[in-house]
């Protein structure tokens, strides 16, 4: 890893967790105990019951939900670029770096848009991913991108402010572009197959409950979606 790459990773992580460079490198880009501590102490007032990070209600709840997913995606691609898989091509590096930057832009956008309503930085768990393996990395990328698209599509109906709906729309189509690209890297022509589309050629969307059940596997911090709108 070059110095500039390392600096970039550090710069990308610094907003999430105020870590020393040494400690950060020691954890090789993964989330840390400090982040877990931050998440644990700021999410609720109850000293004994861990109800998880409250996404809040209404449109802010949906924005926090999106923010959580973007945090997950950004953390993943930061790690992918920090420790590229064996045999990565120059073109793949270029595209995956761009995807990383898009996800960081999404994450930071939601963070700023939410302001004081933003949830804390989430602690991720990538222990099931082999970052040296192309199959493992691209397989995970595909799962995350498809999940993201289905999440935005499913959450659209829960949004009440038209401006937020359009913003979600601006992001979801970029996630869909990512998804198609990653899928084609794995198997050319699988950009929109019947695992993600129904018989009418429509994407299969997911509710927040369905999405979080899948995403929680990769997020150590417990997420509490109980206040999200459901209709």
């Amino acid at each position, binding site marked *: 890893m070059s110095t500039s790459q390392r600096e970039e990773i550090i710069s990308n992580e610094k907003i999430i967790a105020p870590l020393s460079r040494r400690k950060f490198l020691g954890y090789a880009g993964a989330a840390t105990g400090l982040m877990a501590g931050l998440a644990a102490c700021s999410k609720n007032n109850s000293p004994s019951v861990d109800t998880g990070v409250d996404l809040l209600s209404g449109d802010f709840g949906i924005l926090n939900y999106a923010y959580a997913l973007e945090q997950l995606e950004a953390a993943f691609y930061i790690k992918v670029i920090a420790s590229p898989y064996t045999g990565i091509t120059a073109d793949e590096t270029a595209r995956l770096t761009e995807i990383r930057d898009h996800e960081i832009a999404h994450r*930071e956008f939601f963070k700023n848009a939410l302001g004081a309503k933003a949830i804390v930085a989430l602690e991720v768990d990538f222990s099931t991913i082999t970052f040296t393996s192309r199959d493992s990395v691209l397989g995970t990328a595909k799962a995350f991108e498809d999940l993201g698209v289905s999440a935005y599509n499913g959450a*659209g109906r829960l949004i009440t402010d038209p401006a937020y709906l359009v913003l979600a729309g601006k992001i979801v*189509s970029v996630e869909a572009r990512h998804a198609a690209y990653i899928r084609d890297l794995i198997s050319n022509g699988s950009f929109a197959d019947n695992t993600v*589309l129904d*018989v*009418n*050629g*429509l994407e299969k*969307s997911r509710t927040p409950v369905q999405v979080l059940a899948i995403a929680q596997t990769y997020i150590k911090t417990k997420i509490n979606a109980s206040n999200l709108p459901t209709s």
Partner: protein
Amino acid sequence: MNLNNIFGEIEKVDPEVYDRLDTRRAAMKGFANLGGKLALAAVPLAFGSMFQKAYAGTKSTKETVLQVLNYALTLEYLEAEFYSIALSKGILLIPMGAATTAIQTISGHETSHVAFLKAAIAPLGTAVAKPTFDFSGGSGSGTGPFLTVFTDYSLFLAVAQTLEDTGVRAYKGRAAELVKGGDLLTAALNIHSVEARHASHIRQMRKAAGVDVKPWITGVISGVSPASLVAPNYAGEDVTTQATINIVNINGMGTSVNAATEAFDEPLSATDVLAIVKLFIKP
């Protein structure tokens, strides 16, 4: 789908649901009538539109929804016929193998979208008829700038990319009119993302053919030459501010201008889209 269960669930959160729908029996009867006329695939949509009528306060009136769906149908007619003609040219236009398979896949989706939208429109009103298209982009003259679109593979891909990217923008441009639109909004979103997947793949096909494009849109770059031909299709894609938040180097993250434009696809107004689509329609 067990309707009684669904009504039961709704009753839990809204005890007045039957007042809104007259009575449970009337609601079930109304739904049965609707369902009988519809393709099974569109039943959830009819269900959604029934509730839309029942619940006041939604911004999506029946007329708006009908308008938006017919707008979407027009775009899907255009895409469906475009790919259908292209495939009819066989290997004279599209190389055998992966390229043909991909175009068949996309073509199948567009045809399905047409059928789906027609079914969704049926209970709301009249579906627009399929226009007569002029894929030369000559507004019916047949001598527009894309005259060789079905004989020149690279031009075909360029137009395909432009249509897909524009389709994505078009759906986005009317999403706000479907806010709180229930199943209809979800359906529109579920088509919107598929168009984006298509756009991404077509862009990769172009890249494989030597054109310098990415799966996502950088600035207003189309990779189409001359760029002026498709300038209206990409106008505005270069914005770097979202909801007053500057995305370039946001929070010191080093986000480049290119990444800031790529990370968000921009909507296109109905007026702008119709001006573009007009070039492909014989009046």
